[in-house]
């Protein structure tokens, strides 16, 4: 089952110089696939991920997520779609430093508002528990180590049971030990829970262990 379809996506940067960053990219991602986007720096893989994430709407071509043409949606509707269907994990953790880990994990669910506060709290706890962080739940997120923060960010990405988890260099800022932990979590999510994952990485090791590698070069897919 196709969860995400990219149809001839092209994108051009005009500022500072005219530069075709993505050239006619097409591929599908199926449910449960653990896909990595690889390529050299500047090949457009991060740009592609932001296009796929619906945050960047300035491109040509079609992006279909869960059967929905994203081009037809307004910015606010796209935000709603991200909230419900996409979880993000970034290179630099990107937790809100004024909030506790638990609150950070709860935020997307509180925004979605499908469950009441108590239920969300319980769910957030269980997610943190899965990631082995339940004892850190009430600490301010800024007080945690990098590896722990990244795991909190994963828990936050999971809170709304998204269709897709998108990672932008999720291990880029971690040492090898933590990289392994995060990778194991991703693999576990993919194998045991059938979670769809799209991650940008330049870590060959990380990529080689994923289900599928899409390699970009100069804005074109050279392997998928």
């Amino acid at each position, binding site marked *: 089952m196709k969860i995400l379809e990219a149809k001839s996506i092209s994108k051009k940067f005009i500022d500072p110089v005219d530069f075709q960053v993505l050239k006619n990219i097409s591929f599908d991602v199926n449910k449960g696939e653990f896909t990595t986007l690889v390529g050299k720096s500047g090949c457009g893989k*991060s740009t592609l991920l*932001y296009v796929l*994430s619906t*945050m*960047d709407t300035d491109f040509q071509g079609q992006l279909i997520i869960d059967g929905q043409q994203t081009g037809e949606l307004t*910015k*606010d509707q796209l*935000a*709603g*779609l*991200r*909230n*419900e269907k996409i979880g*993000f994990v*970034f290179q630099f953790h*990107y*937790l*809100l*430093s*004024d*909030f506790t880990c638990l*609150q950070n994990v709860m*935020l*997307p669910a*509180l*925004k*979605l*508002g499908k469950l009441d506060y108590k239920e969300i709290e319980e769910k957030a706890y269980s997610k943190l528990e899965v990631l082995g962080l339940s004892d850190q739940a009430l600490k301010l997120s800024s007080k945690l180590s990098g590896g722990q923060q990244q795991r909190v960010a994963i828990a*936050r990405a999971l809170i709304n049971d998204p269709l897709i988890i998108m990672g*932008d260099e999720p291990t880029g800022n971690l040492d090898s030990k933590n990289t392994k932990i995060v990778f194991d979590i991703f693999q576990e999510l993919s194998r045991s829970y059938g979670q769809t994952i799209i991650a940008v990485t330049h870590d060959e090791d990380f990529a080689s262990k994923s289900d599928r590698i899409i390699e970009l070069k100069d804005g074109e897919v050279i392997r998928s």
Partner: protein
Amino acid sequence: MNINTQIAKTYIVTNKKLTGVAVAGVVLGMSIYIFMNSMLLGFDKSSSKSIFKTTPHIRVYKDDEISKPLISSNGKQMLLINPKIVPAKNTIINPAQVISSIRTMKEVQIVTAQVNTNIFYNSGKSQITGICSGINPEEADRMYAISSTIVEGSIQALKGNPNGILIGSGVSEKMSLRVNDYVNITSSKGVNKAFKIVGVFKTSNSIIDKSKSYVNILAAQQLLIESNVYVTDINVNISNPDDAENIATQIAASTGYKAEGWEKANETLMAAQRMRKIIITFVSTTILLVAGFGIYNILNMTITQKINDIAILKAMGFKGKDVIRIFVTQAVTVGIMGVVGGMIMATIIITILQRVYIGGDIGYFPITYEPTKYLQGIFVGMIITFFAGYIPAKKAANIDPVEIFRK
């Protein structure tokens, strides 16, 4: 609690210092705004009060007329070279009827006839010039609150005593006259009459205290060798002094005499009052605006600090208007805290100032708690803080998360 409110609350609580500075700014602006505006109103009230001690809201009198050609003949322009004032009497004809016709007007509270004349006070060889007002004691007391200025004797004694006189404290001092002494008065018509002093008043306006005296209207008419229908002024007090000009016009139209409102009669004072109003409004609004800029700056700073947070919130599905709500909530919360603090502060300042003695005509510092000014302050304060929050929040809402993540 709504998630946006919760985030706003967290930002407020975790940035206690910034919040504190912003609140302090609003407290200061707000308290000065309320205090200065209350003070302005207090000044106005006190100056009106001191005006109304000697001036009625409306004075009806017969104005001097310039002589005109008797015949205004058809088409031809008649010219009088060197026209002069008509040497007619400045008396109101049939004052009783004029008074009763003014009384029928709805807004009118007190109408009283008055005869003013220039006089000399004589006591032994010493002589002082002055003005004597012939009044109806009861009505005049209600109009000018004369009894509140009496330092010796009473106005009651003037009632029904055609030989009684109330003199100013300055006159009393200069001629060393006390209650129950006699003073000889010479009028402009050369009439000499001895009056028994029944009271001494002190208005704290030294010019008045040194010259003015009150007698019964009948006695004043006698001093001018006139009958009891001779009335120079009809004084009118109305329910709302601010309507004076308006009602004066109506009275002038219905009676045919000149009716002058107190604002016209005290043009210099009114001009000073207007000027004061402009200055105080300008200064107090500026201070409040500066407080608004404080909030604006601090919020701008918060947004710059939290730009990563905003980007991540947007990535997680928070909409532009959610971001606006978060920061506007923050600004409005600061605004509410500042407004409440400002009201308390203003109340304290006013309470202290009310106890400061100025002296002279004014007495204690003329300031009161003005509910309208408090409300106005709340209104203006909240509007300014709202916009001080909304403008940077709008900017934050337009942040493109991708741009932040790329850095």
